[in-house]
């Protein structure tokens, strides 16, 4: 992911899609979407210093990293709990 807004746009699309997939009982596909968001967040955080948008916007990078980690944590809980409930 090259910049934060691209990451967020992609992540929101995928999260919404995952909800739809779960509702359509396509659990594996729903989990795949969730997992891919976690991967994208990890990938972005690794390259956060290269994001040109952050140079344009006065965003605190460490705080941003924490907030993205919190989102990732929420999604990981969903994956873990879902796996536990359906194992």
């Amino acid at each position: 992911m090259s910049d934060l807004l691209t990451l967020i746009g992609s992540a929101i699309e995928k999260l919404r899609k995952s909800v739809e997939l779960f509702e359509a009982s396509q659990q594996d596909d729903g989990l795949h979407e969730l997992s891919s968001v976690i991967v994208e967040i990890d990938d972005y955080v690794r390259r956060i210093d290269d994001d040109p948008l952050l140079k344009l916007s006065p965003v605190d990078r460490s705080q941003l990293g924490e907030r993205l980690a919190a989102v990732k944590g929420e999604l990981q809980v969903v994956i873990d709990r879902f796996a536990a409930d359906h194992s």
Partner: protein
Amino acid sequence: MKKEGTRDLSRLTNEELIDLLRRTVHGESSACDLSRLREEIVARNVGLVKSIALEFRNAGEPLDDLIQAGYIGLLNAVANFDLSRNTRFSTYATYLIKGEIRHYIRDKHSMIRIPQWVQAVNRRVKEEEEAFFQEAGRPPSITELAERLDLSEAQLVELLRGRETMTYVSIDEEKRSEDPHPDPPDFTHLASSREGLSFDLRMRILVAIEQLAEIERQVIQGLFYQGKSQAEVGRELGMSQRQVSRMKEATLEEVKRRLVKPDRKDRKGTEP
């Protein structure tokens, strides 16, 4: 029309005052000074806020703080009151003032840890309650509220019961002194409304969407309203001011494109 600031506001009803306030804000009227209008609305409803705050005087919070919270509810009522509906302003304001004070009391007693997804649901419940009140001029029934929230009635009842428990534990001093760290209400019995994904997991995903949307909002705000000048950024990035300008425009276009896409139009995406 009388000169600015000289109009006799005491003759106007609350509804007429709000109408005048809105027209003044939008530049459609200069019959009265904006700050004077606001002062008049607040002054006229001070008694209402205080009387409602007094109903919560045993909540263990200073009365002044409850009144301040009540003022927030009053200001929200002024901002959101729908003049086209057949509802009296005082009825709507009472509803919002009480809600804001209850919310304040719940928030103050943070020894009760409330899961984030439950907070998100409660926020949605509050928004839908208020929206329904605006439309119908009365609070919604359980059936009506459940329908708007896409929940079963049983789920909503459990949710509201949990909310009441939080308030009860918060305001009951005797109970608090017996047990200063009461357990949070148990929401695990909120059964799934959908096959496959339980209610709380679904809410966690929606909370994640909310959080991302909030980050996006702040970044865009910073980008266009609080950032460094394009020349400053250009110097830092080794780009010309024109290149920085193009980059901002491209970002704005991309955001606009996403916002107008049919499946992204409700960007908050918090419908449970």
